[in-house]
């Protein structure tokens, strides 16, 4: 029998028309635009909780909210609220506004603020720094100031096993690791405990996570809440060089990225696509035990976006040969930082301000100690 191709649906995303299959989400339609034309990458809504390889994920972080200016060709009324683009399916004739709508961008700015008010901002000591989705998200959409003056929340440390380190204070509760454990391992022992802003990722009665694919929670974590214990504090990602490699593994596909520092493999991760998602999860043996070059067949350097900090200090030949080109490149990537602070050069004023701020901070911490 001849296969009947489903009729494609045409939608308009930020003024760009795109045809997608029925059942596609707005996010996937936007990614399709960016995959066809890399210069449109900035149009794609950010995703902090949505993870395409994990079905049913998404809809929680609200970072990808977009405005639907017309629901469909049949019913061209706009949707009353902003909708999460990662789980909203497209309709024929839908018109979506993302970067073209100031309300969307304003909301996104506030989502960054919400995610950061209880984040420790310990990027200088965090292993995720440089490949952290929250860093990217706040750099692109956030404000440099904070309006939050209270204490940030903290959690008791718990040990979840020999390979994975949990830093609950950094967690943004995207639930990705919960879905990973649910969908690719056979027994999930960790989940979300408590509720509200006291909810935390934890194991049931402090049990260690123990199965062959548990290491994948490190790759799916958008922040530094789940990190590799074998890699902790060994290096910064921008000092290491990624190489694609594979091996013959009986448990997984064996396709990985090796992270070199000099000749030493300091870390093994699964391969991530341009959206930072892992399509082929790898087993713990590949991730934590095969740390010699002789274990692997090297395929070649991993493609890293030039804008990524991972490619910093690794100069391309053409940039060294043609400094003009480098300047032009820098000009295209220049982005003014949204900073409304008032600057003063008067040293006396600065001294007063810092004393005032200190007093305020001391006063606040006294207050919070006396609460309840």
């Amino acid at each position: 029998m001849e296969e009947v191709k489903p009729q494609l649906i045409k939608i308009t995303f930020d003024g760009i028309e795109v045809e997608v299959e029925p059942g596609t989400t707005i996010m996937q339609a936007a990614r399709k635009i960016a995959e066809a034309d890399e210069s449109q990458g900035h149009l794609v809504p950010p995703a902090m909780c949505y993870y395409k390889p994990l079905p049913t994920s998404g809809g929680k972080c609200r970072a990808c909210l977009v405005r639907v200016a017309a629901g469909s060709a049949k019913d061209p009324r706009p949707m009353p609220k902003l909708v999460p683009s990662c789980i909203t399916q497209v309709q024929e004739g839908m018109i979506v506004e993302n970067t073209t709508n100031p309300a969307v961008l304003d909301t996104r700015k506030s989502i960054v603020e919400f995610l950061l008010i209880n984040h420790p901002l310990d990027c200088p000591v965090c292993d995720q720094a440089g490949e952290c989705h929250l860093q990217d998200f706040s750099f692109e959409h956030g404000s440099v100031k904070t309006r939050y003056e209270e204490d940030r929340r903290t959690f008791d440390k718990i040990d979840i096993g020999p390979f994975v380190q949990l830093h609950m204070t950094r967690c943004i509760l995207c639930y990705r690791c919960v879905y990973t454990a649910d969908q690719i391992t056979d027994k999930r022992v960790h989940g979300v405990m408590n509720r509200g802003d006291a909810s935390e990722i934890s194991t049931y009665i402090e049990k260690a996570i123990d199965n062959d694919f548990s290491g994948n929670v490190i790759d799916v974590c958008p922040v530094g809440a789940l990190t590799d214990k074998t890699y902790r504090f060994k290096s910064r990602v921008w000092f290491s060089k990624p190489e694609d490699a594979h091996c013959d593994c009986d448990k997984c596909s064996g396709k990985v990225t090796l992270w070199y520092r000099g000749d030493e493999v300091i870390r093994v991760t699964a391969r991530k696509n341009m959206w930072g998602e892992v399509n082929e999860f790898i087993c713990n043996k590949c991730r934590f035990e095969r740390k010699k070059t002789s274990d692997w067949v090297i395929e070649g350097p991993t493609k890293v976006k030039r804008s990524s900090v991972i490619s910093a200090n690794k100069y391309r030949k053409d940039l060294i040969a043609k400094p003009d080109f480098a300047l032009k490149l820098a000009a295209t990537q220049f982005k003014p930082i949204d900073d409304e602070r008032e600057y003063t050069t008067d040293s006396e004023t600065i001294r007063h301000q810092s004393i005032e701020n200190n007093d305020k901070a001391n006063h606040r911490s006294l207050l919070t100690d006396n609460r309840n």
Partner: protein
Amino acid sequence: MARKILTEHINVPGIETFEVYRKQGGYAAVEKAIKTMSSEEVVEEAKKSGIRGRGGAGFPMGMKWGFLAKPEGVPRYLVCNADESEPGTFKDHHLMKSIPHLLIEGMIVSSYALGANKSFIYVRGELMYVIRILEKAIEEAKANGFLGKNILGSGYDLELVVQPGGGAYICGEETALLESLEGKRGNPRNKPPFPAVKGLYQSPTVVNNVESIANMPWVINNGGDAYAAIGIGRSTGTKLISASGHIQKPGVYEIELGLSVDEFLNSDEYCGGIRKGHYLKALVAGGSSVPILPAHLITKTAAGEDRLMSYESLSDGGFATGTMLGSGGFIVFDETACIVRNTWNFSRFYHHESCGQCSPCREGTGWMEKVLHRIEHGHGSLHDIDLLVDVAKKIEGNTICPLGDAAAWPIASAIRHFREEFEWHINSPKEATQPGAVFMGAVLA
């Protein structure tokens, strides 16, 4: 005496038993519906009655039933939402403990209308004694042939299950309730798909409030048109109001929708007026989630018309000058109440009850609570007020479920109407933090 639909027989001694309830005309609706009507006809009566959901949102119940998907070979479910935990609302509790058979009868009729063979009553876990009362009532109904297999010889089967919740406010949100009922963590689901398409166990499901369902026996006995004749405009029927606060006679009252707020507040039949020697300062008309109203907007709308107890009149003028009927939690404040403290108290509740799934609500409710705590305890600054307004605006409408809105509205409205009192707390912290301190601006005005 105003007309009573739900509470007509509530004071009859022994009404909680099957025999007394049956003598008062109970279960006549089941007989009428199952023996003489098709399920479509029952749905049609519900549509005609124009009854609106009594849980807070006020969505027409007949229309909700009409949306129920009916695929072949898939079971359909009716779930009764008895997870009443809104501060200020205690009507369902009163109804279930006093006259449990009314809810059971409503459940049988409604399940028959929707073609559900297994229905659930999800009761808040703290009300364990109510759960026992309901279970006893179900046993009695079963023994008399109104529940179980082949009801009244019609071939229609219905099993009714009472499920205690864990006591989380969020499980009163319909999709969180369904998750909890399935035995999972009570996190609201993303919509669409709506429960009418994919609800309990991925099957079409209708979730209705206790009071909505309890109205169904009367609708069947007297017809949808008779029900629609009660009330005013699109607010048909009667409504249970849980009155509390600084009034002479707190309690649960059944009113005909369209009664004026002034009469409800001051007549001896209902609240009996503000307590002696004091006067009205503010009103929360529909449970803690709805915007608070200042004294001058309570009995009159902004346009100068009489404010009525109806969905439309209470929301007259939008949130700038109106509020919502909500779930009917009528909380009255006299001039001794501190609005800042009250707002902080409400925000503490929402902070505690947020499920923590989506970022604006998880982080925003805690933030607002901390800022309000600071203001209430005399350590606020003037820009904190604008901060609160802005944070509330950023939460509203951007969350998965309405809990974010419910957390934002009381704060935004309190600042809208009582900004001076917030400023007084900030500018005169010493006076404001005295025990029993009263904002004199309200007295002078």
